[in-house]
């Protein structure tokens, strides 16, 4: 491995803020002539805009995936006894389930062309379990 030079060591050492408090770093920045209040406000503004953009993108993505699954559901053969369950699956998918549940449903419908009552019951169980898991993970 190439040996680091003196300046590289010096600047890496000085730039490493581990072990330094936020106050200490802030005073370092102030000494450099950086307005820390302005800096914080700028970072907060980026986070605010970024959060809004990501939420919108997430909603659009979820909406598109739900529509895709809905189309798939329409194109599959569902046994007579399972027709009620088809509505239940649709209801679940139009609700507030997360990406994990949507991915699971999508994969499930892609794999086969027809569904019995048992198949849909098992899918509903899986979706509910996944939803619970995702909620637990989110605290």
């Amino acid at each position, binding site marked *: 491995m190439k040996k680091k*030079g003196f300046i590289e060591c*010096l600047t890496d050492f000085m730039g*490493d803020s581990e072990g330094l408090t*936020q106050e200490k770093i802030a005073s370092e920045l102030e*000494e450099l002539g950086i307005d820390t209040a302005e800096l914080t406000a700028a970072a907060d503004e980026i986070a605010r805009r970024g959060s809004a953009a*990501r939420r919108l993108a997430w909603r659009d993505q979820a909406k598109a995936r739900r529509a895709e699954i809905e189309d798939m559901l329409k194109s599959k053969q569902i046994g007579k006894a399972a027709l009620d369950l088809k509505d239940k699956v649709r209801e679940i998918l139009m609700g507030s389930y997360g990406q994990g549940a949507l991915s699971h449903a999508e994969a499930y419908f892609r794999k086969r062309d027809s569904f019995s009552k048992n198949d849909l019951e098992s899918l509903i169980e899986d979706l509910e379990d996944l939803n619970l898991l995702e909620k637990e993970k989110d605290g």
Partner: protein
Amino acid sequence: MVQDRVLDLLESADWKDIIFRLTHYAFWKACRYAWKSGSADQLPGGKTPQDMALDAIEKVWMGVREWDPDKYPNLYTHLKWIVDSDIDHLFTSKEHEKTRRMPETTFDRASETPNPEEHLIAGENKTYEDDIRDELYAMVEGDEDLETLMLYFDEGIDKPQDLAEQTGWDVTKANNVKKKLFRKAAKLKDLIRKGEK
């Protein structure tokens, strides 16, 4: 509603702490290069180290430099990589084409033969580094800890853990020595800025 996991992690991050540390990091990263402006806080395109830090944060938020928390759990480390890459990119940009680079990146290529221009730049850089080193040694003279630190920098060692291992200092002591060097930082920054001119 269950949300995108990355969004959750980004929303719960301590952005005040991150922007302070990242700007501090960007400043010292920029000090490694000799800029046309003569100053690490005036980068090409009118950028500053704080702009580099804010740009990195924006890139992660907007998905331009997507963060994968499963692969790289530490968000701050991911942001530092973006700053590194962006500053390197600025340095090699057209706007900054005629410049000098710090010696460590041009002098250690023992196996390669530099062309005359590289040789000239390397010579200038060597002088520059020697000047900074001499002045730094003079600045810390009489302080045994800081003198030791300089010797280890000469050996290419700068990580607090490695320093602790080599010197027998515990990590707390290594961090205290860092604080001591920070107290000399104003003078140090002037020195580096002067060296860049």
